[in-house]
């Protein structure tokens, strides 16, 4: 969070709308990676990774990326439409827990971000759930980075506060403390989400 490691269940964070809030759960998918070399060549990976932020520094392997200098990385927070269909992902406990009921269109949650915020003087729950193809988040990080030989590590960092700003200052009191079945709230989150990630 703003450069420091996330501490769960502590109402110590402040977003752009000056909501004091905590995080109790952060689950999401990242997928469809595309690396662009400085020479313009592109390398894509159709891997899908599930992240539970409560697990210490989750890491994943992408094999076969050529050594070289890169200028950008693109990926999705969520799933592309081919995979956002019920039962498209392997039947694992995590995927089942992320499933988006058929009754509501099927597929999967792209993200579940939950916690409490101070509503007046009272801690009140919020739940930012993101799903449906129109709300997939397209991340496009323009930054020079080098991939050297052997096993190279790329550190991706999510700044949770960025979900609540740029371009929309998301205020739990005004925009709603629940995004479920609220496509306006989800659209704002999806747009804000494009720059939550950075390469460290």
């Amino acid at each position: 969070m703003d450069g420091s490691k996330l501490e769960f269940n502590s109402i110590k964070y402040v977003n752009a709308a000056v909501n004091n809030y905590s995080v109790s759960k952060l689950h999401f998918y990242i997928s469809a990676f595309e690396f662009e070399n400085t020479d313009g060549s592109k390398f894509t990976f159709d891997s899908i990774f599930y992240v539970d932020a409560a697990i210490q520094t989750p890491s994943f392997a992408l094999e076969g990326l050529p050594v070289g200098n890169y200028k950008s990385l693109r990926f999705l927070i969520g799933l592309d439409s081919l995979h956002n269909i019920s039962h498209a992902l392997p039947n694992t406990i995590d995927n089942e827990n992320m499933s988006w009921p058929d009754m509501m269109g099927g597929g999967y949650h792209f993200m579940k971000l939950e916690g409490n915020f101070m509503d007046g003087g009272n801690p009140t729950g919020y739940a930012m759930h993101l799903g449906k193809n129109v709300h997939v988040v397209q991340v496009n990080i323009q930054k020079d980075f080098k991939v050297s030989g052997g096993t190279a590590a790329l550190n991706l960092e999510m700044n949770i506060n960025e979900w609540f700003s740029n371009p929309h200052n998301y205020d739990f009191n005004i925009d709603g403390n629940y995004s479920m079945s609220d496509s306006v709230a989800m659209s704002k989150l999806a747009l804000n989400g494009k720059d939550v990630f950075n390469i460290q």
Partner: protein
Amino acid sequence: MKLKVIFTILIVGLLSVLACKKDKDDDPINNLPPYNPTPYTINTPSNLPAMNVPSFNPTTVEGVYLGRKLYYDKLLHPTGTSSCSSCHIQSQGFAVTGTNIIPHVNLGYQNKFLWNGEIQGTLEDAMMFEVETFFNTDISRLQKDSLYPILFYKAFGSTTIDTKKCAYALAQFLRTVVSGNSKLDRFIRHETLFTADEIQGFNIFFSEKGDCFHCHSLSLTSDGDLHNIGLDSVFTGVNAGYYNVSHNAADYGKFRTPSLRNTALKTTFMHDARFTTLDQVIEHYNTGVKHSPSLDPVMTKPGKELGLQLTPLEKQKLKAFLLTLTDSTFLNNPDFSNPN
């Protein structure tokens, strides 16, 4: 005279040596075949998630059989007064109707155990707790038994019994105790149809209307996590839930999401058995949720701050759906029954 006595003793001695030798040949513990356990494939129905089996305790036919035998054996108790099965009765959903005993169903999918999540890790960790802390098993009783050392050898390659092997065998058996043939399972697999009431109840359960699905996920009917569902607003004693484990105020009133399988067999609900009918449980979500700082965020969505506000007819349909979670195949599966 003196010589004769010595001679007699010698003969007796020789006879006893022969007798010993004969006994030794008959004793199966001295004639064990090579250790070669048979891998066991846990058959989970297609609609249930794949089960993670830890590589340090692979499931084998011999391990599952041993675990099943131990599960039903009062030898696990230091004075022989009860077995696991005394409080986990198959026909009652591997629980005891009318108590808050947690049903042993689909435990192989869990990594948090007991109502308040006190034990976390693998099923082996949970079973270690049961053997060492709950039962405080006297291993010498099993070691002295005529059969168990051989069964442990067949399962684990050694006739020496310890609490870890007991826990591992129990974990292997309980991973096979899978419920996946309720009407809901068959409906998901397109093997049967729901009645109009059941489908409408299903739709309430799996939509924002009832919003049950955020914790009671599709097939397992549990996300395996800990939540405060608003049973209390002041937390003392056992009602403090996971707080009693973590001592973090954010965990007041959090309990593990129970599986809803075979819920129709139950006559008490929640960690302290405070409700006695499914109607009372539904009414809790409908009008009885109590607010507190640790209340799960999903419980207070806009328009539902005072509960789900379902109509009597909608509540009836939700209940009709819950009754589809009874799995009679599971309740009668001979593979889970007492082998002793």
